[in-house]
């Protein structure tokens, strides 16, 4: 092999180390997984409740994020607003904010004595913290930026000329969005939704801070894993962790075209 084509040894070795560092913990998880009793661990009533609750909360959170996040993404992509750049930056804050801090912030906004929460409580009798709705809210808070940035890029990148064509054919702005923009950006929006859902499913910090860890109401999978570890049920914790790992790998497979750029 000519010198020109030899792989650079130093970079390749360090890269290999980094890859091992990322993959070894997952291998450890698989190695210690209680394969013989995994069915029992996962069908245990507490585990099943946590699974069902996780699924329910994450789907609701994704729905909530889409319902308000898509219009927000559209505005960020298409409407000339003063302060739009600032708004875009603020929307991304939950992406980098430690989730625990997000939970505290949610408490201060929607807690019983919070900025908004006090009126929710005194006017409508609605209490969010330490309820399932609170868990949904916490998950939506951390998951929505993933949907918004994906959707904004899609709306920005969509060929506006098709929308112009639809307008000249008598389509109102809403019809243009529904029949042209949405179908043409559908794949990207779905990817953003899957991404947001995966993030919501794995949410821990904001949920435990804002919604607490109450079995059957707010004990989602990650919280249940933590609870099991704390109480010494290592094997059950690993079994539930495997579920989350499998979901993550599945999401990666679904989105592989978008990220790896390979067919």
């Amino acid at each position: 092999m000519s010198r020109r084509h030899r792989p650079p040894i130093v970079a390749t070795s360090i890269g290999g180390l980094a890859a091992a560092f990322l993959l070894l913990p997952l291998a450890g998880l698989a190695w210690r997984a209680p394969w013989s009793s995994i069915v029992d661990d996962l069908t245990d009533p507490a585990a099943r409740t946590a699974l069902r609750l996780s699924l329910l909360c994450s789907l609701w959170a994704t729905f909530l994020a889409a319902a308000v996040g898509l219009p927000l993404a559209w505005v960020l992509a298409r409407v000339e607003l003063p302060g739009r750049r600032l708004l875009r930056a603020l929307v991304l804050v939950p992406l980098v904010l430690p989730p625990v801090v997000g939970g505290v912030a949610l408490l201060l906004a929607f807690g019983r004595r919070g900025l908004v929460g006090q009126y929710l409580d005194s006017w409508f009798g609605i209490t969010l913290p330490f309820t399932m709705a609170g868990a949904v809210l916490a998950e939506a808070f951390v998951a929505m930026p993933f949907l918004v940035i994906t959707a904004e890029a899609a709306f920005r990148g969509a060929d506006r000329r098709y929308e112009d064509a639809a307008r000249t054919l008598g389509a109102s702005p809403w019809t243009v969005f529904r029949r042209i923009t949405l179908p043409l950006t559908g794949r990207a929006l779905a990817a953003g939704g899957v991404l947001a859902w995966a993030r919501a499913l794995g949410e821990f910090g904001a949920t435990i801070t804002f919604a607490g860890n109450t079995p059957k109401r707010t004990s989602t999978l990650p919280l249940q894993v933590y609870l099991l570890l704390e109480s010494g049920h290592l094997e059950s914790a690993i079994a539930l962790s495997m579920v989350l790992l499998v979901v993550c790998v599945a999401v990666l497979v679904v989105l592989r075209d978008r990220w790896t750029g390979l067919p």
Partner: protein
Amino acid sequence: MTGSAARSGLDAEVVARVGRFELQAELQVEPGETVAVVGPNGAGKSTVLRALAGLLPIEAGHIALDGVVLDGGPGGPFVPPHARPVGVVFQDYLLFPHLSALDNVAFGLRSRGASRRTAAARARTWLERVGLDEHLDRRPGELSGGQAQRVALARALVTEPALLLLDEPLAALDATTRAGTRRELRRQLEAYDGVRVLVTHDPLDAAALADRLVVVDGGRVAQAGTLDELTARPRSRYVADLVGINLLSGTAADGRVDVGGLVLTVAEPVSGEVLVTIPPAAVALSLTRPAGVARNVWPAVLDGVERMAGRARVQLRGPVSIVAEITEAAAAELAAGDSSEIWVAVKATEISVFPA
């Protein structure tokens, strides 16, 4: 509104700005008339169409269609694009890639409130009219260029607009598809009785499809008129070079074209119905019958002379009317001599022939 105002056609004075480019153009078109806006790329042609369609609000002036003001400029009335009785055939057609041919054509009807069944039935009728009844379920990606053009035309016409706008409708096609599609487009345009505005950079398409031409240059109208007027009396070098061509139509066979009373020898092997173009500068004139090798020689009568920047455009009557561009000195010689008979000569290689 009076009866005549209801069909008064298009009256537009468009002043628009795109970035640093400013456009100012006037346009009057009667119902049943086709006007071609001609100019090179970047001359402001598409901006005119976007303003007429309502996709670009004008900065000053007005756009009125059949007596209704669609855009009165800033502070005036503005009818949004989806409420205008306008159909557009876009450059590259812009068929919706996720919808079938049938759904593309039905889109305008559905948007305007037609039921699914009514819209589908009328879309089907239109696709049959343009000869695509076997391709109803095809997606745009599965259609050829000529087929896509016909779907785009059906989509624009199915809502029966009062104004039809066509943006470079033939530019996306290769030479072989082009002639057939142009002939078909001409037939469809004649069957449609609204106002037709066509934008093109190709003078041949403009000449073949339009009744009148509006030549734009750098955001301004350089000259407007019929092709014959523009060829005989171009007001600028720009207009002369862009559209000032002799255009004849005839029937070709065996390297010869019969253009009505005159048979031209041409270099290109074509047959059937054709369009023939002869650049005025390629037309040679003399007072005696030329003895040279030019195959196409015929006698003509002087009909008028236009002087323009050191050149003269000489109009000649004969078996066919033709314009020659010669030097002013040569024109003076012709005028001094016995001009009752002038000999016209054109080399076969100077004649371009296109399938009509």
